[in-house]
């Protein structure tokens, strides 16, 4: 009750001579000091209020690139044709198992890196024939030829059949090497 009787000057004795003016000055200073935290708090309050009023999902954005993986079960095929194969004109069919994993539609191509074999004579790359999925045998070229196609797959095995044409008039005894046969994905 006594405090209610104090004049403004008594309450702030060390201020300027106009007690009321001192009170106003102090009030303004406090407001200036408190204004920044106050603003932050208010923003948080508003933000919380806003969150409480609506659903807001956190966004996650990823990019899954086109992935295609290819492997074969053997780096090389070695053949030793016997007389019956030379007489018939073909080696026995060899199989390359190609394992494919892809997350897109794919097409597989095959090509030879050189136009001839290394060996006793320049045996042409076209003497190598391939087939996939029961298709007719097709001679390999140095330009890519489509072997087969497929969709998204995981470790899908596609056997590719190979056989080599033999000509007794040209394929004289010796060692013949062909490197390399390249299997690649074709861009669709």
């Amino acid at each position, binding site marked *: 009750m006594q405090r209610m009787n104090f004049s403004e000057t008594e309450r702030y004795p060390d201020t300027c001579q106009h007690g009321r003016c001192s009170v106003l000055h102090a009030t303004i200073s406090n407001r200036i000091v408190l204004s920044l935290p106050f603003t932050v708090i208010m923003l948080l309050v508003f933000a919380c209020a806003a969150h409480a009023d609506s659903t807001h999902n956190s966004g996650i954005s990823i990019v899954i690139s086109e992935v295609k993986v290819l492997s074969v079960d*053997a*780096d*090389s095929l070695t053949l030793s*044709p016997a007389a019956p194969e030379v007489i018939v004109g073909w080696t026995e069919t060899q199989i390359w198992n190609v394992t494919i994993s892809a997350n897109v539609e794919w097409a597989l191509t095959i090509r030879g*890196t050189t136009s001839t074999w290394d060996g006793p004579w320049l045996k042409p790359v076209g003497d190598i024939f391939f087939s996939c999925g029961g298709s007719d045998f097709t001679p390999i070229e140095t330009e890519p030829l489509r072997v087969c196609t497929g969709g998204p797959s995981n470790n899908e095995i596609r056997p590719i059949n190979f056989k080599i044409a033999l000509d007794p008039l040209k394929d*004289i005894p010796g060692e013949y090497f062909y490197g390399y046969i390249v299997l690649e994905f074709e861009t669709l």
Partner: protein
Amino acid sequence: MRKLVFSVFLFILLTVPSNAEPEPGTDGSLIIFLGPVQFFVVNNSSPLTFTYDQYSDFGVAQDLGDVNYDLISNVAWQVWGQILDGTGGGQTADDWDGSNWTLSVNGVAVNETSAVIIDSDPNPANRDDALWEVLLSIPWPESVGTPDCQIELTAETV
């Protein structure tokens, strides 16, 4: 704005390698070890026959027909011929007069005593249903009979 720039950068970072790299692939090689190969077969299913029933048939080479054969060789080759006058194949033995008669295959006289080369080539061959002419000359006179023989033909690589 920074976020936008970062996002674009991230996008490029993730997609450019996929587009810039060549399509994945794999390769393999082929090796052939090829040795000398030879295939030889005579296709005649019945004997060559000839009937000497005229005087003019004697003393001159008569065409008995041809040896039909297949020969495949990826190296130099040669074929030997020799007359066999035994009992093989139902033949009557020792009724062929190899001393006085001249039997030739591919123009080369063959005999009973030793094999002779009737054909050869330093190059590979791939002959199918090829023919060697067979000629026989029997001098006059010759007694009546039905002499027979076999011609053994042997191919070999050189």
